[in-house]
């Protein structure tokens, strides 16, 4: 499958170091430097764009030109930089020089060389989370640099149990990917599943963690995301403490969390920052919003196509008067509006922010009112569609809200086919699909099915923190207890 790839890339073709250097010299940013003084000579080769110039000039060059150097071992001993490698393995040399190492040779034809690390580290500053913004709580978000991201996690979790297993993915991109978990808490089976699935990835490019997500999902043909992605280091720390496994990928500001459940996609991290009553209400509203978002337009189509009798006469008169002048059957009317909303969203997502706002106004107000006045859609449906679009955006995880909007279309078609019966059928399809889904081999619908009462403490509602004394059963953690509940128990008496 990757034969083409071997032909062009393999360093096997280059026999020795001088040949490799000759090959590298074809690039314009590959520099070489020679020095011959007091009898000793050295040759330096590096990629200007990958190397930090200051340490190169201040440390490496200064030491190399001041001290007499007779062997490569001298370099390793004298240059005050850690991680110097002396090797003649072409594969290692090639790999290192491409990640910002400097090649030092003492002799123009020698095959052995020293590799001095001198990478330039250019990364965006840690900034505010934009997708998962919360009013209270930390304002730090992951950036594209893997080291910074690991730092953000480690400084919040300064324990030696926090392991970061590293591996390289992508035959061309050589992306560093790190699996983080707490040893002694995370289930080893889960960790091994993740490691195994990552190792089984054989693609040429891993440019973002979402690529990994697609490649290691249990069911790749499901519209439902089976791993949560987050840009919040505090959320990552929190799930690590629960015993989950986190995947960080270089170049991606999104961490992947697994195993996860359906309900986790509807829990915002802010839920843990506010009082449990407020948090639970917010969650219930979100669940309602999702059901509303999926079902309301199909129910409109179903009732107005087949079941007029279902609606009480007072309500029916409102509906009929709003639909009086509409020439289209309900399904076309609904599809027209749903498509309009999808167009708006898609156009808004592709445009720069400022133009995007204008888009929203043009689309929302002008098209909406105009289509009602033109008699293409009814007022009631316009309200319903706008509300259900709004409701779909309440989902805290962006990927899930995409899925929810997508789910509406099969429901619409089924509603047109068999009315309410069709909706139930489609709903059954959805449930069976969700039942079959797994996240890293763990059931996706847990704690609802399989019913685990212990895990309901943090599912549809979030109980007070003192009830959260055990880790989710779903994860089968090695250490199930989070803290001793007795300390947190209130004394059951009136204050005197």
């Amino acid at each position: 499958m990757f034969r083409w790839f071997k032909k062009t890339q393999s360093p096997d073709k280059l026999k020795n170091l001088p040949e490799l250097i000759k090959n590298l010299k074809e690039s314009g940013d590959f520099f070489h430097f020679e020095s011959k003084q007091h009898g000793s000579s050295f040759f330096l080769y590096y990629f200007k764009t990958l190397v930090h110039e200051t340490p190169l000039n201040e440390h490496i060059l200064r030491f190399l030109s001041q001290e007499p150097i007779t062997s490569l071992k001298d370099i390793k001993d004298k240059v005050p930089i850690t991680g110097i490698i002396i090797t003649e393995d072409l594969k290692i040399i090639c790999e290192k020089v491409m990640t910002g190492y400097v090649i030092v040779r003492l002799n123009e034809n020698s095959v052995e060389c020293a590799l001095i690390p001198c990478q330039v580290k250019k990364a965006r500053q840690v900034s505010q989370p934009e997708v998962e913004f919360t009013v209270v709580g930390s304002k730090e978000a992951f950036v594209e640099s893997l080291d910074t991201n690991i730092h953000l996690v480690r400084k919040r979790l300064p324990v030696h149990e926090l392991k970061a297993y590293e591996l390289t993915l992508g035959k061309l991109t050589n992306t560093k990917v790190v699996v983080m978990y707490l040893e002694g808490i995370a289930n080893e089976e889960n960790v091994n599943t993740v490691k195994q699935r990552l190792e089984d990835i054989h693609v040429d490019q891993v440019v973002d963690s979402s690529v990994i997500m697609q490649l290691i999902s249990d069911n790749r043909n499901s519209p439902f995301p089976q791993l949560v992605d987050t840009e919040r280091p505090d959320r990552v720390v929190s799930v690590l403490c629960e015993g989950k496994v986190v995947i960080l990928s270089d170049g991606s500001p999104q961490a992947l969390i697994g195993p996860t459940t359906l309900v986790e996609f509807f829990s915002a991290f802010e839920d843990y920052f506010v009082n449990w009553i407020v948090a639970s209400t917010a969650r219930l509203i979100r669940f309602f919003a999702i059901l509303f978002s999926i079902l309301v337009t199909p129910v409109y189509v179903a009732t107005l196509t087949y079941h007029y009798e279902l609606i009480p006469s007072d309500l029916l008169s409102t509906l009929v008067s709003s639909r009086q002048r509409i020439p289209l059957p309900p399904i076309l009317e609904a599809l027209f509006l749903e498509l309009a909303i999808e167009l708006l969203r898609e156009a808004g997502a592709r445009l720069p922010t400022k133009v995007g706002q204008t888009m929203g106004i043009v689309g929302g107000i002008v098209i909406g009112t105009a289509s009602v006045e033109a008699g293409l859609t009814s007022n009631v449906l316009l309200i319903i569609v706008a509300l259900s679009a709004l409701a779909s955006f309440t989902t805290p995880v962006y990927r899930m809200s995409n899925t929810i909007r997508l789910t509406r279309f099969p429901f619409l078609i089924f509603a047109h086919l068999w009315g309410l019966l069709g909706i139930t059928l489609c709903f059954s399809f959805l449930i069976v699909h969700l039942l079959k889904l797994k996240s890293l081999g763990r059931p996706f619908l847990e704690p609802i099915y399989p019913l685990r009462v212990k895990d309901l403490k943090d599912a549809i509602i979030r109980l007070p923190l003192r009830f959260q004394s055990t880790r989710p059963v779903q994860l089968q953690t090695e250490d199930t207890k989070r803290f001793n509940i007795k300390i947190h128990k209130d004394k059951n008496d009136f204050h005197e």
Partner: protein
Amino acid sequence: MSGPIVRDQYKVSPFLVFYLVHSVQVGVGVMGFQRISSKVAGNDAWMSVLGAGLSIHIIIYLIYKILNKEKGDIISLHKNLFGKWIGGLLSSIVIVYFIAMSITVLRTYIEVIQVWMFPDLNKWLFGGVFLLLTYYCLSGGFRVVAGISFFGVVLPFYLVLTMVFPIFYGHFQDLLPVFNHSVKEIYEGVKGASLSYLGFTTLFMYYPFIKEPEKSHRWAQAGHLVTVVIYTLVMVVTIAYFSTDQLENTIWATLTTWKIAEMPFVQRFEYIGIASWAIVILPNLCITVWAGGRGIRRLLKVSQKSATIPLLILILIVSSVFAERKSIDLLNEYTSKVGYYFVYVYIPMLFVVQYVKSKVVKEK
């Protein structure tokens, strides 16, 4: 005496047997079981329903006695008790019974839809989509079947609340005088009522799929108990709401009571009820087809997939061929008759035969 080996990862926890038993019992039966027992037992029909329920508690006890000893399913039981050929024959009869049950369920549901919602429903298309859904469910293995039976109980449970509406209009003095029917009439009612409880015999097939199956006994009893309570409740409300003569002419009494349910935003509740009923019917179909397919697999040593697909096609064809009311009634009658003898005659007989055989073997 050893049954089939089922790997642990495919097993379900014992408490799910509650849903498996309950969901397979409550199917099309509850929509109109009242007429059959009240035909003979009149206003004492609720006693028949209760009596039938209690008698089935004993049958479930017997099933567990048999299976706990056998540690397998009915296929291995037949083979051990009657040998390969006679056992195989009996097993295939049981399999045919399961398939007939699924045909009855699907056909009756389609009939309800045709009568109450869409008179010109394309039954081939609808049946096809429904069976596709069943296949989608079955392809996930028994865990998904158990899952759908869980949702098939939990999600439509709100329908029990709709029984409140007829209470407002009911005349509960209709229940009096109690015992104005002879024991024989009530017994005839029991016979009629027991039919709506059928289906739990699929336990014979999925028993090896339960983790620590001995522990699931109380859950099976509990699942059945809930069915008994619901049926008795519905029966009492129905007797209060309908007059005996009217009930005799009402094929789907439960659906008729839904007609009076009225909320500020919904009238004609039966549309919602019948539509929701699809989630109740689905596990029914899934469990019975699963049991049939599993039986064929065990008997003929073919893969369950290649057994299930022809089964589903067969169900689609047969259920679409039975077009008339008369033939549907006939179908219902025969399946329930077979079910009746299976439950009340065959299961006790199996118990006795197994008991005697184990004694004989021991003495040897």
